[in-house]
């Protein structure tokens, strides 16, 4: 059993290597959301384009929809914008924007300049609805099902790859 003395440390080393490489792949910036499979937080906000009208979470019940948190001051939002516009054009799901800690003029000007993929944008000026959704790094995107449950959250700009591999299949599945 002489080989045993060498095999055991080797196995321990291999196990440590395994954990090291797993750890290197994990991104601490991606904090898992505790909202997955839980009801999306309720909100009632005025619309970005019309302060006299409101948009509420409950308005979207019965539909599978995306909530995209954005702001005119957010550089990464500009990065994902073409992807979002392309997704909106497929009409796969309504996209509701959550305009986070912004001003109406700047938000509207940004949409005017870069294009508006949103069915409607909710105006969350003080960011409190953002806190309810656990927003910490704009942009963030949520997929919410017909019963109002959060099924998916993506932190950071959307890429065509994320849309193709994660979002579109999920939308197809939720739409039945």
């Amino acid at each position: 059993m002489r080989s045993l003395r060498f095999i055991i440390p080797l196995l321990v080393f291999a196990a440590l290597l395994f954990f090291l490489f797993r750890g290197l792949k994990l991104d601490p910036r991606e904090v898992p959301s505790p909202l997955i499979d839980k009801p999306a937080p309720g909100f009632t906000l005025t619309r970005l384009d019309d302060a006299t009208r409101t948009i509420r979470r409950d308005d979207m019940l019965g539909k599978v929809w995306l909530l995209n948190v954005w702001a005119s001051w957010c550089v990464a939002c500009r990065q994902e914008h073409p992807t979002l516009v392309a997704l909106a054009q497929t009409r796969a799901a309504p996209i509701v924007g959550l305009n986070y800690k912004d001003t109406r003029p700047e938000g509207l000007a940004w949409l005017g300049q870069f294009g508006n993929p949103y069915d409607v944008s909710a105006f969350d000026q003080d960011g409190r609805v953002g806190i309810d959704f656990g927003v910490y790094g704009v942009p963030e995107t949520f997929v919410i099902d017909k019963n109002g449950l959060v099924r998916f959250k993506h932190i950071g700009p959307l890429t065509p790859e994320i849309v193709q591999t994660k979002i579109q299949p999920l939308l197809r599945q939720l739409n039945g």
Partner: protein
Amino acid sequence: MADVLRSRIASGLLASMVFVFAAVAKEAPPAAEDPVLEKKMMRIAAELRCLVCQNETIAASHADLAADLREQVRRMLKEGRSEEQIVRYMTERYGDFVLYRPPMKGTTLLLWFGPVVLLVGGLAVLVIVLRRRNRLSDDRFEPDEPEAPDEGTTR
């Protein structure tokens, strides 16, 4: 003559330094309305992690989100919520990671005890191996090379 010049340069330097500092000095932050509430808020804030600058608490972080969350804690304290309710509010929205001190749970046992277990295990192996070697008779080991006064010569 040189003395006068030196003192002129010194006072000129001093004056320009004052201007530079004045230019970068910010207004002092407004004093808190309620210092007792503020202290309570800071105490709770020191237990919550800023998710933007993840190694800092929201008490220490300068990030916008940290300021927003401090305001949220302040608001909840004014409403009369307990510290436990406030912490639960945060973990419901941001998950366990928002707690600066990892909670003691089934999933974090490895985090808390892993390093100690590995250390103790490693020390135990060392002690066992050394003890075992101590007991072996001397002929199991290579003899020490006797000190040779002339190392360079061939054997």
